[in-house]
C-alpha cells in the first residue's frame, strides 16, 4: 500500500488554487508530475501513455476521494471538472513541499491541459526515456514517436526551452 496523503493534500491545493480555472484529471496528472519531478515526493508511479506521463495511483486516488465526498467530479461535459468541498481547502504541506508547489504553480498553472501534455511528455522523454543524456534532436524525435503529429516541431522546441529555463532539463548533449 502506498502512502498517498501528500498526494491527496496536493490535489486539494491545486483544486482550490484559483476557482476561475476549471481543473480536470489531465491537468492534475501533469501538474503533479512536474511537482514530483521537482522533489515533492507523493509516491506516485508515472509511466508514459498516449497523453503523456500518467499515474494510475493518482487516477485511483481521485476516484477514491470522490467516493469519500472529498471532491466532486462533474461528468456532464466532455471534460470532467473536479471541484473540492470548502472543508478540504486548507490541506497543509511541509515547508519544502510548499516551495515546490508554489514554484510549479507559478510557472505552469493556467496553461491548458494540451500545453501541459506537450511539456510533460518532452520532460518525460528527456528525463526517463533518454536518462538525461539525449540531444535536443533526440528528445524531439522520441517525443514525436509518442505524439505523432499532434504537436508541431516549433511547439515541442518551445516546450523544451521552457523546461530548460525552469531547470527541468539541463546539460543537453
Amino acid at each position, binding site marked *: 500500500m502506498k502512502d498517498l496523503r501528500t498526494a491527496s493534500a496536493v490535489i486539494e491545493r491545486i483544486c482550490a488554487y484559483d476557482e476561475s480555472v476549471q481543473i480536470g484529471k489531465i491537468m492534475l496528472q501533469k501538474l503533479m508530475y512536474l511537482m514530483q519531478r521537482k522533489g515533492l515526493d507523493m509516491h506516485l508511479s508515472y509511466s508514459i501513455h498516449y497523453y503523456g506521463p500518467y499515474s494510475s495511483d493518482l487516477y485511483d486516488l481521485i476516484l*477514491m476521494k470522490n467516493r469519500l465526498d472529498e471532491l466532486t467530479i462533474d461528468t456532464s461535459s466532455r471534460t470532467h471538472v473536479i471541484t473540492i468541498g470548502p472543508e478540504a481547502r486548507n490541506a497543509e504541506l511541509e515547508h519544502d513541499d510548499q516551495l515546490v508547489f508554489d514554484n510549479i504553480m507559478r510557472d505552469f498553472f493556467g496553461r491548458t491541459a494540451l500545453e501541459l501534455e506537450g511539456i510533460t511528455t518532452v520532460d518525460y522523454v528527456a528525463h526517463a526515456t533518454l536518462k538525461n543524456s539525449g540531444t535536443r534532436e533526440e528528445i524531439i524525435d522520441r517525443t514525436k514517436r509518442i505524439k505523432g503529429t499532434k504537436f508541431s516541431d516549433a511547439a515541442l522546441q518551445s516546450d523544451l526551452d521552457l523546461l530548460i529555463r525552469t531547470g527541468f532539463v539541463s546539460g543537453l548533449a
Partner: protein
Amino acid sequence: MAETRTNRLRDPIHDYIELTNEETRIIDTAPFQRLRNIRQLGMTYQVYPGAEHTRFGHSLGVMHLTSRAFDALSQRSRYLQEMNPNKRLWYRQILRLIGLTHDLGHAPFSHAAEQLFPEGTSHEEITERIINETEIAGCIRDLGRSFQRTYGGDLGIEPELISEIYLRGGAGMDPMFPVLRALMDGELDCDKMDYLLRDSYYCGVNYGKFDLERLLTSLVIRDVHGVPKLALDSGGTQAFEQFMVARYHMFNNVYFHRTRRLLDMNLTEAIQHVLPGGRYPEDVHAFLALDDVEILARVRSALADSEACRGVAARLVHTCVLETTPHPNKDQKRLFHVIRNELYKAFGREKFMEDDSATKMPHLIPTRTEIDDEQALNIVNNRTGEVSTISDDSPVTQALSNEIDVKRLYCKDKNILEQVKETVHEYYKMDD
C-alpha cells in the same frame, strides 16, 4: 500461423488453448505452477462452491484471448496488414507473453489480502520482479532467441521488454506497444474478458456472459496524429454494453458479495497474523514460497492464539446488520455513518467489522471516462469516422458507471445481534 504449435490444453471457457514449446517451458516453471494454488477469487469458493478456479487457468485463458484479439485486429487494421508479417508475429508473441505472465505476482488468495504487500508495492510490481529475477527470465530469453533465429535478428524478446510494456506502456519505444498494453489493461481488455467468462462459469452464474466474438471482431486501430490507438468499431457498441453490464452484475453479485467480502476480511486478518511482521516478504523467492495451501497450513497451526485464524478455519460468518445500496448518495452515506457511530457508542466498536472496500478499490469498478482519458476506449463511427467514448455514446454505460460504493457493517457478537438489528430498524423508521 507461423508459430509451431506443439501443445494443446483443454479449457472449459475457450476449448483448446495452443502453446509453443517455448511457452510450455514457462508454464513448467515453479513460479508459474504456483498459480495452480492461487484461487482466482479469494474466499469466494466458500460462497459459490464451484469457484475453486485458479490464476493458472486464467493466465492461460488471457494468453489465448490476446492472440485471438490480435488476430482479429490484424484482419481489420490496415496499419497491421501493411506491416512486415514477421514484425506482426513479433507483436503477437510479445502480447501472448504479457498475457501469460501478467498475474505471476499475485499473493495467496489473489486480491483478498493485497494490503499486506510491502509498503509501496503492488502485485504488478512483484510480477515485474518475478519476470526479471527468476527462471522465467531465462525461459523468455530462450524464447526470444528462438524467435530471432526464425524471424529475424532485430526482433528480440527480453523479459525486461515484457514487463516494461505491461507496467509502463512502452510508449516512445515502439508505437504499437501502447496498443498491446491497451489489450491487457483498459476499459476493454483480454484480462477482463477472460475473468468475467471464467468467474461466471465457475461460480455457476450467468451474469458475466457477453458476446465475445462480436467484441473481438469489433476491435480496430485508430490513427491518432499518426500514432496507432486501440478503438472499437461503433458496430460493436451493443456488445461492449453487454460486456459492461456483465461486469456490473459480477461486481454486485460475486466480487462484492457481502459474505465473500466478510470472509476476505477475516482472511486478511488471519494472514496478517501468520506472516512475520504482518506483511508479505520483500524477497521475491520468499514471496513465491507462499500460496493458498501454505497460508491455510499456517492458519491451521495458529488456531490456539488467533481468533481470526479460528474464524477462517471454521468459516465464521458474521451477520451484516447495516448496508447501503450499491450506489449510495451523500445522504445515504451520511445515514450509514450516523447509525454506525451510534452502534459503536452503544455496543462497542470491537463488536463490529466494517467493509468499505468498494471505496478503496475504484480501479476494479467501471467508471465514466472522458475522451482523452487514458483508460477510455474510443468508439469509431464506421460511417462518419467520428470518435467518441462509450461513456458519451451509451446511456446504458452512463447509468452503469455510477460508482459502486456499497458500505457494510457486520456484527461479530451473536449475543447483541437482535438488539443491534432493532436499533438499525429504529433509525430507518425515523428516517422515513
